[in-house]
């Protein structure tokens, strides 16, 4: 079972306590954007087999949104961090590079 730690209230809980919110760090295109850009924002996903940055909500807890970096193959959680950022924290990226040699942060969408 997937276990996450909410960075907002510090509680560690099973996945039933949380709700997945899909890929994180998408560029949210607004009015005046092209069809291609809207498509990228609304539908195109990296969907990696491996390191995934994603949004979660602590629904049965503090109710806050946060980010997580997780391996989609092993369900290992590399770390969670606040929602109010456009890029994962550097120390988290470093930790992932250590565990997954050769892995690189791609500019998503």
């Amino acid at each position, binding site marked *: 079972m997937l276990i996450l730690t909410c960075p907002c209230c510090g509680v560690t809980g099973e996945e039933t306590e949380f709700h997945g919110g899909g890929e994180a760090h998408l560029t949210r295109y607004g009015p005046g954007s092209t069809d291609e850009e809207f498509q990228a924002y609304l539908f195109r996903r990296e969907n990696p087999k491996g390191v995934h940055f994603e949004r979660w909500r602590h629904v049965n807890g503090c109710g806050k949104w946060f980010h997580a970096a997780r391996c989609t*193959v092993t369900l290992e959680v590399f770390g969670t961090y606040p929602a109010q950022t456009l890029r994962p924290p550097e120390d988290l990226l470093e930790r992932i590079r250590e565990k997954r040699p050769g892995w690189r942060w791609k500019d998503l969408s």
Partner: protein
Amino acid sequence: MKRYSAFAVAREAFRNHLGWDRAWRAARPKDRYDVVIVGAGGHGLATAYYLGRNFGITNVAVLEKGWLGGGNTGRNTTIIRSNYLQDASAAIYEKSRSLYESLSQDINYNVMFSPRGVMMLAQTQHEIRGYERTAHANALQGVETRFIGPREVKQLCPIINLDGPRYPVLGALWQPRGGTARHDAVAWGYARACSDMGMDIIQQCEVTGVRSSGGQVTGVDTTKGSIACSKLGLVVAGHSGVLADMAGFRLPVESVALQALVSEPIKPCMDVVVMANTVHGYMSQSDKGEMVIGGGADGYNNYTQRGSFQHIEETVRALVETFPMISRLKMLRQWGGIVDMTGDRSPILSATPLSGCFINCGWGTGGFKAIPGSGWGMAELMAKGHSPLTAEFGLTRFAEGRFIDESVAAGVAH
């Protein structure tokens, strides 16, 4: 290929069954093919089969990283139906269902198609209206379905509890010619027919890269060496994102685990397929007597082929409410498959940004029923560049806003 027949069974019975051939050759890859298909699931094999049967293209290889049919094709709960809402869906799913009717004869392999009837229960007023609408749409599309009342539901499926505590059964959308088929047999039968046409089915051969030159696909790298091709079909379900990444584009697809489970075998008690979308569970009885049960997909991306435990709990809870008699059944096995979900819950059969490279994916939780029709359309698309069956299912629909919205009609995994 020796044909399978009652006579062949009798003949072999007299010589200790020593005369049967391998169903398909164990092929080694050649340097180049006209067409390479990645993924020997039902959709990949059916694509190859109809390329040969309908278009005479037989210099084809189907590459499979594991074993043939070991992906979702061998993991699904085998429900076949075509009672979708949108015209484009009805066309391809009904084409598929009707091909299933004569598939065993066509490929000389018993796929055990059993049109026992599929009912989708209406357990809220909203569902009644939704299914009545679908029944009307189906009437216009020429797909035989009917909205039936609770009495008829009970007659067709006596083990159902009509007045459950949360969601009484108010009626159902009934498709009398829907049903099930044997999933392995579909993969094996197509593989045998492909091999018989001279195609190479190469197992334990993982594609690790896509080669191209000047925007045109030229071949693939595999764990068994490089293979050149003029046309490439990516038909890898949950791994579509991984293959698309190799080919240099991104898909509107997310991969999640979907699970199923089966009970210990019991005496025949249910001869239709029942889907309960509101409570999220569905069930049928296999020929061996096991109750075959499926439910919801995981709520987050993953490639674990296992699935979350609470989904089993939810599914079983829902089904016990609908079928109280199964409450004491022991469950024998549980497994998961990685399904490829698109934004509008409809598949993608399309050319791609890489010229010569085609993709067939996004069947998500419900593509077993579509194998023959999808293979038929995909083969035409790859051979001729367009197909009426696949025209609406192109990749560009997500930019153009021409969605084929089936997320309401197919609210449950199936």
